[in-house]
C-alpha cells in the first residue's frame, strides 16, 4: 500500500470544455494533498485541449496527464476506462476522485472494478483519519443518513457530488507540468448515433430555484412561480408528482429520482417535504418554505417558512420584491 502516493483527479470535459466539477475536485484535492504532503495530479482525455489543460494547473494541479485523441472528443466509456486504469497502475495515486455527474457515475464503477478497488458514491464530504486514510462522507437511504466510509484497497476512489466542494481562486501564474500520454485504443463497442442538447433549464446550475408541488391546482399555475423565479434570475423546479402528471418537464424535477440541486436560494411552494424531495435539495444555501399546513415536514428544513396559501403568498412576495427594488 505504501507504494501508492499522491492524489489524482479525473478532469471531465464536454465538447472540449472542462466541466466545473473538475475544478471543485482540484480545490478539495489540493487541501487534502497538502495535508498529506503529496502531489496533486489530474487526468484529462480529449482532443486538442492543451490550452484547457492549463486551466487545471491554474486551479491547483501540479501535473496534468493529457491524452489527446479524436476518439476522446466524446465520452467513450471503454476507452476512457482502459486508459485511466492504465495510468493509475503506472502512477499509483493513493486517492482518485471523480465528479458524481452522470458521466462520472457511469465511468467510475468501471475503473474501480478494473483496478479491483472500492468506490464510494456521491460523497458530500472528505476528511482524513489520524493515519492519513480517507474518510468518505455520503448520504445513504435516500438522504436520511450520512455514512462515514473507509476503503481498505488502493487507490481510495470516490465520486464527489457537484457543487459541494470549493474550487480555488484561478491563478494564471501557477506553474505545473503537462505530460502528454499516448492513448492505447480498445474497441469501443458503443456507437453514439446522435447527440443533441436538451432544451430547457439546466436546473443543477441555477442560483435560484422556485419549486412547486401538489399544492398547485393546475399546470398553468407554474406561471405564478415563474414570475418570482424570473425576478430573481432563477428557474422553476418541481416535485415529482407534477412531473409524472406531465405538468412540467422532467428536467425540472428536484429530488432522489430527479436532479440534485444546491442553489443559493430554494423556494418550496406547496411541497410537503418528503424524504425523496429533500434528498435533492437539502444542501441548498437558503431554503424558504411556503405551505398551508404548519406541520408539513418541509418547515423542519427551512431557514424561513410562511404558513399560508401559496396563491396569496407568492404573488405578494413577487410584488414586494419588485416594489422594494423600484423604491
Amino acid at each position, binding site marked *: 500500500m505504501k507504494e501508492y502516493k499522491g492524489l489524482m483527479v479525473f478532469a471531465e470535459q464536454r465538447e472540449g470544455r472542462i466541466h466545473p466539477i473538475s475544478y471543485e475536485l482540484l480545490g478539495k484535492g489540493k487541501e487534502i494533498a497538502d495535508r498529506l504532503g503529496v502531489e496533486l495530479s489530474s487526468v484529462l482525455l480529449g482532443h486538442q485541449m492543451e490550452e484547457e489543460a492549463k486551466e487545471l494547473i491554474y486551479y491547483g494541479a501540479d501535473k496534468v496527464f493529457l491524452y489527446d485523441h479524436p476518439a476522446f472528443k466524446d*465520452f467513450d466509456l*471503454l476507452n476512457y*476506462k482502459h486508459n485511466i486504469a492504465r495510468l493509475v497502475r503506472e502512477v499509483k495515486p493513493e486517492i482518485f476522485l471523480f465528479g458524481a*455527474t*452522470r*458521466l462520472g*457515475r*457511469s465511468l467510475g*464503477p*468501471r475503473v*474501480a*472494478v*478494473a483496478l479491483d478497488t*472500492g*468506490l464510494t*458514491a456521491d460523497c458530500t464530504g472528505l476528511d482524513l483519519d489520524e493515519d492519513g486514510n480517507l*474518510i*468518505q462522507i455520503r448520504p*445513504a*437511504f*435516500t438522504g436520511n*443518513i*450520512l*455514512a462515514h*466510509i*473507509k*476503503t*481498505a*484497497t488502493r487507490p481510495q476512489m470516490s465520486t464527489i457530488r457537484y457543487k459541494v466542494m470549493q474550487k480555488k481562486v484561478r491563478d494564471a501564474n501557477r506553474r505545473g507540468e503537462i505530460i502528454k500520454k499516448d492513448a492505447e485504443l480498445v474497441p469501443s463497442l*458503443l*456507437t*453514439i*448515433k446522435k*447527440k*443533441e442538447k*436538451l432544451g430547457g433549464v439546466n436546473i443543477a446550475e441555477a442560483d435560484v430555484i422556485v419549486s412547486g408541488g401538489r399544492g398547485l391546482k393546475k399546470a398553468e399555475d407554474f406561471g405564478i412561480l415563474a414570475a418570482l423565479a424570473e425576478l*430573481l*434570475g*432563477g428557474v422553476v423546479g418541481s416535485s415529482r408528482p407534477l412531473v409524472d402528471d406531465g405538468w412540467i418537464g*422532467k*428536467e425540472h424535477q428536484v429530488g432522489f429520482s430527479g436532479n440534485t440541486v444546491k442553489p443559493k436560494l430554494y423556494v418550496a411552494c406547496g411541497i410537503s417535504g418528503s*424524504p425523496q424531495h429533500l434528498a435533492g435539495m*437539502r444542501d441548498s444555501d*437558503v*431554503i424558504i418554505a411556503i405551505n398551508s399546513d*404548519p406541520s408539513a415536514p418541509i*418547515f423542519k*428544513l*427551512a*431557514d*424561513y*417558512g*410562511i*404558513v*399560508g396559501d401559496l396563491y396569496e*403568498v407568492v404573488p*405578494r*412576495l413577487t410584488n*414586494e*420584491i419588485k416594489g422594494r427594488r423600484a423604491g
Partner: protein
Amino acid sequence: MLKIVVPIKQVPDIGRVKFDTEKGRVDRTSAPAEINPFDLNALEAAVQIKDKLGGTITTISMGPPQAESALKDALSRGADEAVLLVDREFAGADTLATSYTLASAIRKLGGFDLIICGEKTVDGDTGQVGPEIAEHLGIPHVAYVSKVEEVGEKITVVCDMEGDRYLIESGFPMLITVSKDINTPRLPTFSDKLKARKAKVEIWTAADLSSIADQARFGSQGSATAVRKVVVPSEEARKGKIFRGIVDEEVGGIIDALEEGRILEGIK
C-alpha cells in the same frame, strides 16, 4: 429471442422506515420490504422487450431468505425464472463484492444477451452495481437510459446526461441501467399473483458458485469499503424562522429577514 437478466434488490419502504438517531442505525424491521422502485422500471423494460420480440426474463437477487418474496413479486410481474443468492458468506458486501457475486451468478446462468438494472437502490443509493457487473463480465453498458429506441440485431437506447442526450447503439451482450422516466411499471393481476405464488424460486448458495467464483471475493471479506460510522443529519442547523398570520406581515417579515441576511443581494 433474447435472454434478459434483471437483477433486483429487496429494500425497506423508505417513507416508513425508522432511523435510530442515537445509535445511527437503520431499523429494517420498522417498515415493510418491497422491490426497489427503480428495479420495477427495469423489469417493466424487460417485459416490454419480451412482449415485442419474445425471449426469457430471469430475475436474480442477492439478499436474505426473505428476499424470496420480492422475487415472487417479480415473477408475478412478468419474469419467467427467479434465482435467489442467499448465504452468510454473501453478507456485508459492498458494491465491489455485490457486483462480483451477481456477475458470477449471471455467468452460471449460461448465455445472456441483455442485463437491465435499476438506476440505483433507495437504500444503498450508489448506482454502481450495474456498471460494476458489466465490468466484471467484460461487456459494455449504458447508464441512465430513459428510452429503448430499437431492439433487433443490435440495441439502440437514449441516455440523458445533464442537458446532453445521446442515442447509443450497442451489440449484445450488454447492460443498461434505467431511470424512472423509461416507463410506468404495470401492476400484476390477481391471477398473475396466484401463479407466481406457486412458482419456484431457485436458491443458490456460495457453494453453488464455487466452480466459477473465488469465494474470498464474496461478502464483507471481498469488500473494499466499509461503513465506519452512521449519523442521522440534524436539521437544527437551519434558522427555522416561521412566519404566520397576516399575509402582508409575513411577506414583509420574510423579505426583511432576507435583506438582513443579505441573501437577495448576491442574487440579482
